[in-house]
């Protein structure tokens, strides 16, 4: 059977680990890992675990659930307004979803739950049916779960035309067709773009081709890296200390492998958590035996005569004998296939409104093209309407649901996507969980618990309001901070509460200067009269 746990919801109550201990495991205080493809003999225990979950975060394959507790109601007005063809579209329209991962699957499920009975095509570049990625950098690398056993459970029978193993290569908006790598074209009435991101490779192509140099994004990547780690390499080099890099380093230490993490910035997780909290994540690494080198770049990777990676040269002048180098330098949005389509797509992703409708290059909103998940960049009313790309698991789910709902809803029935962003990471037995957007903050204060014990809660502020909270092994309290973020509560918080630390004064959060996501591309505007004025993208990337 298959299962997935929504770890965005999980508060670490461990009820599942009590009731099905062979399937669910708690590491440290509250970090949950699990077997996503447990044996059928575990079914009763897993049903017990799923029923007992206080936040109902466990989803099983083909769970016999009653139909959606709120059956879709279709008011006559909504039907008439729905895309101008209303009920007809919902019954017999054509929806194409490009991208067959978490977002694409969840959107397809939601479309069916909302009563869409027309044709539904899911196009995926990978040959696999949708699978879950978070276990790849944790249970799979540790050898507890096989990479192929990560397929996502299905909430329902989908009746989908799957087009897997073929990439979308172009979009013809005028003809309403998606072009595929095999030369075929698929027509649509409405389109959902959910092409996500891919891992940024090591920039030197020859070095990137060495055996032992790899990225971690796909099932294949995880399978390969697992094999390499199982071969007990002399040392693993992790290039970049974002979440993937830190989690890889954590598994290496769990396996007793020597690992060096090279991070160009002053601390691990600096972009996500800022320098102050990132430094604590760095201490965690060092306590667990990671050779952490911050402010250091990898200058070159060296292979032996057989093309096997053998050495890395660092900007601090040292060289390391390494057999494996994991490039963990962040992600590149899969938006190239939309070049020339007329959509506002580029290195920043695909811009859309808060209801997931894509913008065209002029900044006009489209009617029938939607975008969700890692590939999207949407305005966040809570954060000054900044356009933010939120590459989190929970965002893929919530945005997919809003996009799917809006695709089959009339104008007055549409929803804005206003979910507060959340993410989690498990490293060195510690669960790091975040609500809000730490990276917009200017200050941070430790408000609960103890940094020394690695059990604390930090609140982030921007110009006197709370914008995020991050917990290390304290995630049961985060639920309290979410409404404070939503309501722009004052920062620093001054209320009295339990477990107050001795020192709660805010300090600068230490985020790197915001990178300009549009530095690779420029928009130029042409035309004089209002009816002529048009924007155009020019790609000025240095090759």
């Amino acid at each position, binding site marked *: 059977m298959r299962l997935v746990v929504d770890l965005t919801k999980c508060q670490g109550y461990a009820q599942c680990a009590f009731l099905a*201990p062979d399937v669910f495991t708690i590491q440290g205080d509250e970090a949950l890992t699990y077997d996503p493809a447990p044996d059928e003999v575990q079914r009763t225990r897993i049903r017990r675990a799923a*029923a007992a979950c206080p936040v109902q975060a466990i989803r099983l394959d083909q769970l016999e659930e009653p139909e959606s507790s709120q059956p879709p109601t279709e008011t006559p007005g909504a039907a008439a307004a729905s895309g101008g063809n209303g009920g007809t579209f919902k019954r017999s329209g054509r929806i194409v979803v490009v991208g067959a991962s978490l977002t694409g699957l969840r959107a397809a499920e939601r479309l069916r739950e909302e009563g869409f009975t027309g044709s539904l095509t899911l196009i995926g570049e990978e040959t696999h049916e949708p699978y879950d990625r978070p276990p790849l950098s944790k249970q799979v690398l540790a050898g507890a779960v096989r990479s192929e056993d990560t397929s996502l459970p299905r909430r329902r029978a989908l009746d989908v035309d799957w087009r897997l193993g073929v990439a979308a290569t172009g979009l013809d908006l005028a003809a309403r067709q998606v072009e595929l790598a095999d030369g075929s074209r698929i027509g649509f009435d409405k389109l959902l773009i959910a092409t996500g991101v891919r891992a940024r490779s090591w920039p030197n192509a020859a070095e990137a081709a060495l055996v032992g140099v790899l990225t971690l994004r796909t099932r294949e990547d995880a399978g390969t890296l697992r094999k390499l780690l199982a071969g007990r390499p002399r040392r693993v080099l992790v290039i970049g200390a974002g979440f993937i890099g830190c989690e890889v380093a954590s598994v290496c230490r769990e396996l007793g492998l020597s690992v060096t993490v090279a991070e160009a910035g002053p601390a691990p997780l600096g972009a996500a958590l800022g320098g102050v909290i990132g430094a604590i994540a760095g201490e965690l690494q060092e306590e667990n035996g990671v050779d952490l080198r911050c402010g250091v770049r990898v200058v070159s990777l060296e292979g032996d005569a057989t093309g096997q990676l053998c050495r890395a040269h660092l900007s601090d002048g040292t060289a390391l004998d390494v057999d494996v180098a994991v490039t963990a330098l962040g992600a590149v949005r899969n938006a190239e296939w939309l070049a020339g389509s007329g959509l506002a797509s580029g290195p920043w992703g695909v811009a859309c409104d808060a209801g997931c409708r894509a913008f065209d290059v002029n900044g006009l909103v489209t009617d029938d093209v939607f975008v969700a998940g890692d590939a999207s960049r949407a305005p966040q009313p809570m954060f000054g309407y900044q356009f933010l790309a939120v590459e989190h698991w929970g965002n893929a789910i919530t945005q997919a649901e809003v996009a799917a709902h809006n695709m089959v809803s009339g104008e007055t029935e549409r929803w804005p996507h206003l979910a507060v962003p959340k993410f989690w990471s498990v490293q060195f037995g510690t669960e790091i969980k975040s609500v809000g957007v730490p990276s917009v903050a200017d200050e941070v204060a430790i408000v609960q618990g103890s940094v020394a014990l690695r059990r604390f809660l930090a609140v982030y502020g921007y110009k006197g309001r709370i914008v995020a909270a991050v917990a290390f092994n304290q995630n049961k309290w985060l639920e309290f901070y979410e409404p404070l973020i939503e309501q722009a509560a004052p920062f620093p918080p001054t209320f009295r509460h339990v477990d107050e630390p001795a020192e709660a004064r805010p300090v600068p959060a230490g985020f790197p200067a915001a990178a300009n996501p549009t530095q690779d591309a420029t928009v130029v505007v042409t035309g004089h009269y209002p009816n002529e004025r048009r924007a155009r993208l020019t790609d000025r990337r240095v090759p």
Partner: protein
Amino acid sequence: MSQPSTWEQILDYANRANPYPFYEELRKTPVTRLPDGSYLVSTYAEIAALLHDPRVSSDIERNPAAAAMRAAAGEDGEGDGPGMTPTFLSMDPPDHDKFRRITMRHFGPPTTPGRVAGMEARMTEIVTDLIDNMAARSRIDVVDDLAYPLPVTVICELLGVPPGDEQRFRVWVDVALQSTDPGLDPETQQKKRIEAGKELRAFMEELVDAHRRAPGNDLLSAMVTDDGPEGRMPDEQLVGTGLLLLIAGHETTVNLISNGALTLLRHPAELQRLRDDPGVAIPMVEELLRYEPPVHFVPFRTALDDIDIAGTTIPAGASLTLVLAAGNRDPAHVANPGLFIPDRHNNQHLGFGGGVHLCFGAPLARLEAQIALTAFATRLENPRLVSDPPPYRPSPFLRGPSHLPVDIDGVLAPDGPAGDGTVR
């Protein structure tokens, strides 16, 4: 004489059998101030929020209502339970977290993950024996014959309390629990607490000593001998925590099982459904925890700062009572809250509380109730309620029947047509 308030009516023993109409009344004002300056919270969203609110303390020493009760009895320095020193139940982080972790080391994940699941076979065996013992009888008492002996046997075996000791502690526990009745005058309440507490404490001190001298493969032995990374509990904590586990480890489960059997007898179609498909027991126990929870409210929480909630400001220093049983039937949270729907979808409830104080023994209670109620449904022939409502125990807080007489036509073998007493 003035009309009794809704809260007084809830505390009134005359309304023990059905407090739910009064909870409905209570929910009309989500946050209610009582004449003594304490506050009641009765709606789901507000209770859930306060369970996760760090401005709310569980520290019994900070609570004015608990202090008033002690003062009225002319005592000081007494703890949370029946004359116990405070345990993690009535502490705040970081002490709460530390003592709970130390205790959890021997009971559950991450250190001892398989303990509760590993007790399933033994629980099934106990239930099988209890039901076998009903074979020759036409009338049983669900409380005395199933709902009480199962959890008390399980917790005694788990802790390492000798089987014969149950006779000794049962009397003291009954007194201690009666004295948690907020309807009783504080002085009597406190005096009874202290008497029973002294007896219980002496009993547990004796047990702790015995386990230290001759440790066995049980939880108390582990607690008195094992030095984990955070050290061992001080002796006073050991005794208090041992008593907490012993008492909370069975008293609440008795009510869960009794309330469950009563609810099934009142819903014959659901009883039949459980006979036909014992797997229904799994979601059904969650629904019972919502619909007829064994713990009706969480008393003695304290606001550490002014808390604005549901249009009311709870002032710093005020005592709070979270009325879980009212929140569980809040129509703003759950559709058809007054209906018992065993396979209710996405059943999030307050039956075990929430936040850092979520019931320590929840997995044990769930498993015991699933096994007991499945056997109750599948093995008893034609069970009929003798009286509805049955007589209730005094407490409005730990609420359940004192006896639940049921007439039966016989007992099926454990491998009878509908199942073997285990949940599949």
